[in-house]
């Protein structure tokens, strides 16, 4: 399905719900769109790292687990700047769609 959502916007919106690690972010995006839109792993991780480099997201490592081969999960959370950006984005999207709804 063609969509106006980008992976970056979808991830920012998914993180409004709270901290999540990579797989969880992908699942959230999938669930929020009712399974019609998904972020591939190939683009999700680079986007998360870019958002972090831009200061919109911060991350930290959890405890290592055997299921992950002794590797820790890396959790992401919106910073104040990221939260503001996500809200602005949401409002912009709703404003943009408003005339279509009125018609």
């Amino acid at each position, binding site marked *: 399905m063609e969509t106006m959502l980008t992976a970056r916007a979808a991830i920012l919106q998914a993180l409004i719900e709270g901290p999540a690690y990579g797989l969880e972010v992908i699942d959230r995006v999938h669930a929020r769109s009712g399974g019609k839109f998904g972020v591939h792993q190939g683009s999700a*991780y680079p986007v998360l*790292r870019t958002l972090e480099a831009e200061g919109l997201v911060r991350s930290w490592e959890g405890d290592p687990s055997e299921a*992950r081969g*002794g*590797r820790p999960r890396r959790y992401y959370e919106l910073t104040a700047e990221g939260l503001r950006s996500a809200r602005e984005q949401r409002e912009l999207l709703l404003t943009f769609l408003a005339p279509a709804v009125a018609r």
Partner: protein
Amino acid sequence: MTSKESRSIYIRVFHYLLSGRAGIKFLDDSAALPLFSSLASLAWPMAYFLDVEPSSAMGMTCLALTVAYYVLLAYGGVRIFAQLTPDKTAIRSDRYDPAQWSAVRRWTATEDPSMGAWLRRMRLKRGKRLDVIAEITSISKRNLEAIEQDRFEALPNGPQRKSWLRQYADEIGLDPARVIVLFDDYVTGGRSAVVVAPVMTLRTAATATSTAPGRDRTTSGPPRSHRCARAVFDALERVLDQRIAREEFGDALEYILGLPRGSSRVWLTIAWTVLRTSFNAIRESPSAPWGRRTGR
């Protein structure tokens, strides 16, 4: 046999010796073995330069030393092959002595809280010389001394430092992945019994699955595909950017564990993850595969 014919034999054999020389460094258990192999590898060229008749007693002695050298090479080859097989757990339990990790507790309790000093004690316990490690790993002795003297700030920052630490840990018989976890805690100032606890838990879990006698691989532990994926990811993690590899491989392993057993998606996921993560690591850090950042 003419002198020219015997020289021709020597040159051919010497060529094989040179081509197989690199394999000997995998025989890492003692310093004496590489030393012997070096001497043995010199026997044949010495016989050539001294123009020893191959059928004489001296020639036969040189031949015996050469044969011994080849046996060592074959043994090294078997060891290399064993390390490349997907199920690395058995090799790991042989290669890294889990008992050494009890020293972590002693380290945290000791008056000298330096991680470098602890690593040095581990090395001495293993009977490894610093110059030998420097030669095998191609890390300069000065940098190895910096590790042991706890001067981590003297090492290059980022993946290079961890790459060296991994190689050093591997040479002194400690599991590199766990040393890195410990190191991360140490440099962030979180060295304490609480922080070390996950490492100890990891060790216990790994020992339980890898060294339990008579374990049944088909019914206990993670599925074969998961172990295989873990071996592939562990190997790749050594050369890729640590942060990217840890995150993406960790998530992929967790995802694979959630897939039904025997599903073809498992193998597709492994292949896709390897390609994707390698691409990301190279794209985001141009010189990541050889562990040196050029900065951006």
